[in-house]
């Protein structure tokens, strides 16, 4: 049978200052890991959650993102009445031509950065079924009215209902606030398509068509048709696929975060090793006694490994708990693909907690391995002889 757990638990308690400091180190590494992962999860979520499963994104061929795409109205007209596209009861297709423009807006502190001013038609609210006006009302077509996303409201000037928002080349009256399930749409300002086209002064063109397919429609066939029809000649993909490729920002952050976390973990592992070596050294006589009494070398090694694991796991729990307040914290970041500002919220998920705990356990195992092996390998006679 194995050396009892209470031996390890009480030994940890006896050297509580030492254990606390090493545990503290591991906890902080887990904290950093969790915060970075929460940011990545938040970024992913903001970008992806704007999509709907039956929506398509249609862009100019070769365009990588909405804001660099552009095509003619004629091309839009050619695809508008395709059979795969869902219709309203009155026969209007769920096809929303849009023009998202990067425009400067002033923050509360006066600094300016680019956000997206999206020109949409009324049908856009139906196609983007996750977007809802929650305060005020939708803008009326043909007027210089806009609705602003929730993420802008407390961060940018003049984003309250009734204010006049200066964005692009004009003055727009804010008539409503919309929410979009926490997605990046909430960092945008939406206005009438024609008004935005006029404002951008680049001619009357569209950058993207967002489409909702009819139930049971053949998506691959639709995509082929969009590409092959010479009158259309555009590029279509599902919203899910589109957003999957928009992860550059999150990927960069994830890469940076992982590198830092791993290097920190190496530091923490060195620290854990130091502590465990000291523990083994201080308890040499105990180890000798246990071996003399008949506990096998394997049992001794396992015991010290478990001790290290217990310490690291407890530290992991502390680290995760310390990270929890970050959940829901909203921040802005530059979307590296659209070159506009995006509001997102940090998100802590169950899976991330699990990964953080695994990370902590790994640190405990790696830190405790060599010292535990040494404990196992000591000669019984020499151990008993030590003071």
């Amino acid at each position: 049978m194995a050396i009892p757990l209470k031996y390890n638990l009480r030994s940890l308690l006896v050297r509580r200052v030492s254990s606390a400091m090493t545990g503290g180190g591991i906890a902080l590494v887990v904290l950093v890991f969790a915060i970075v992962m929460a940011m990545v999860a938040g970024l992913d979520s903001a970008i992806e959650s704007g999509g709907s499963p039956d929506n398509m994104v249609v862009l100019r061929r070769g365009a990588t993102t909405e804001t660099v795409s552009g095509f003619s109205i004629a091309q839009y007209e050619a695809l508008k009445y395709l059979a795969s596209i869902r219709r309203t009861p009155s026969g209007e297709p769920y096809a929303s031509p849009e023009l998202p423009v990067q425009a400067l807006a002033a923050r509360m502190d006066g600094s300016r950065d680019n956000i997206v001013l999206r020109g949409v038609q009324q049908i856009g609210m139906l196609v983007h079924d996750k977007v809802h006006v929650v305060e005020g009302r939708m803008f009326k077509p043909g007027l210089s009215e806009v609705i602003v996303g929730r993420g802008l409201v407390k961060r940018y000037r003049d984003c309250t209902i009734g204010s006049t928002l200066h964005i692009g080349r004009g003055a727009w009256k804010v008539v409503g606030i919309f929410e979009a399930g926490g997605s990046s749409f909430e960092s945008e300002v939406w206005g009438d398509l024609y008004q935005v086209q006029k404002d951008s002064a680049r001619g009357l063109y569209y950058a993207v068509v967002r489409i909702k397919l009819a139930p049971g429609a053949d998506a691959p066939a639709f995509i082929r048709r969009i590409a092959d029809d010479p009158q259309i000649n555009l590029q279509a993909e599902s919203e899910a696929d589109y957003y999957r490729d928009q992860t550059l920002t999150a990927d960069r952050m994830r890469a940076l975060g992982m590198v830092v976390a791993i290097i920190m973990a190496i530091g923490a592992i060195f620290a854990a090793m130091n502590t465990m070596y000291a523990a083994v050294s201080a308890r040499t006589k105990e180890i000798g006694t246990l071996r003399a009494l008949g506990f096998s070398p394997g049992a001794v090694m396992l015991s010290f490994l478990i001790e290290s694991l217990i310490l690291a796991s407890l530290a992991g729990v502390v680290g995760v708990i310390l990270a929890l307040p970050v959940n829901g914290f909203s921040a802005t970041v530059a979307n590296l693909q659209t070159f506009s500002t995006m509001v997102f919220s940090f998100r802590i998920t169950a899976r991330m907690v699990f990964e953080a705990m695994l990370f902590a356990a790994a640190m405990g195992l790696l830190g405790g391995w060599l010292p535990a092996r040494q404990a196992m390998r000591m000669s019984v006679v020499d151990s008993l002889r030590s003071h």
Partner: protein
Amino acid sequence: MDPNYVVEIENVSRTYRRDEFEIHALDKVTIRIPIAHFVAIMGPSGSGKTTLLNLIAGIDHPTAGRVAVGGEEITGMKERELAAWRARHIGLVFQFYNLIPVLTAFENVELPLLLTHLNKAQRREHVEAALRVVGLADRMDHYPRQLSGGQEQRVAIARAIVTDPTIVVADEPTGDLDAASAEDILTLLRELNRRFNKTIVMVTHDPRAERHVDEVYRLDKGVLIGLETNTAVSARATSA
């Protein structure tokens, strides 16, 4: 292997290296210890008596020769086997008690039983019995730091006998105790030997020990120089 002898040491030598020096701790020693005897191994510092004890207890290997305990040859056993064997056959008592500081007296005595298949209730029975034998049943939940030196050693003895081992091996059990406590411990060991027929092999400096044992083996510089049985021993002690 002769059943009358519980420990058979045949032509055993033990040499080890310390940096560039070779130290001959034991040189061709042959000893046979009869069953249910209480024996002392004595000699000046560096005589090899502790090394001899370590070989009997199975915590060290001889460089040459054979060691058999309880009829079983332990010379060639691998460490894992030896560990299991020790758990079953050997009870150890050390000079500095070697109790685990973070465990109570009860838990310390219970330790060797964790290596058996006894369940919790059975273990409790054995532990309480052992502590009763050494007279410390009322201190079961004390930690070593809450006990006196003599009491700690008695707990250690309880731990040594709790599995009913083949032999009890004691290394300077009175070395750290005052005269009164030392006397108590020696009496207790004698008692264990007489009442329960436990074979006890004790390494000691303590001249008082000579009165309590059946035989004294004398070592000097790694070689066995003499064996005295009790009558001779007690005769020398009283005449001194």
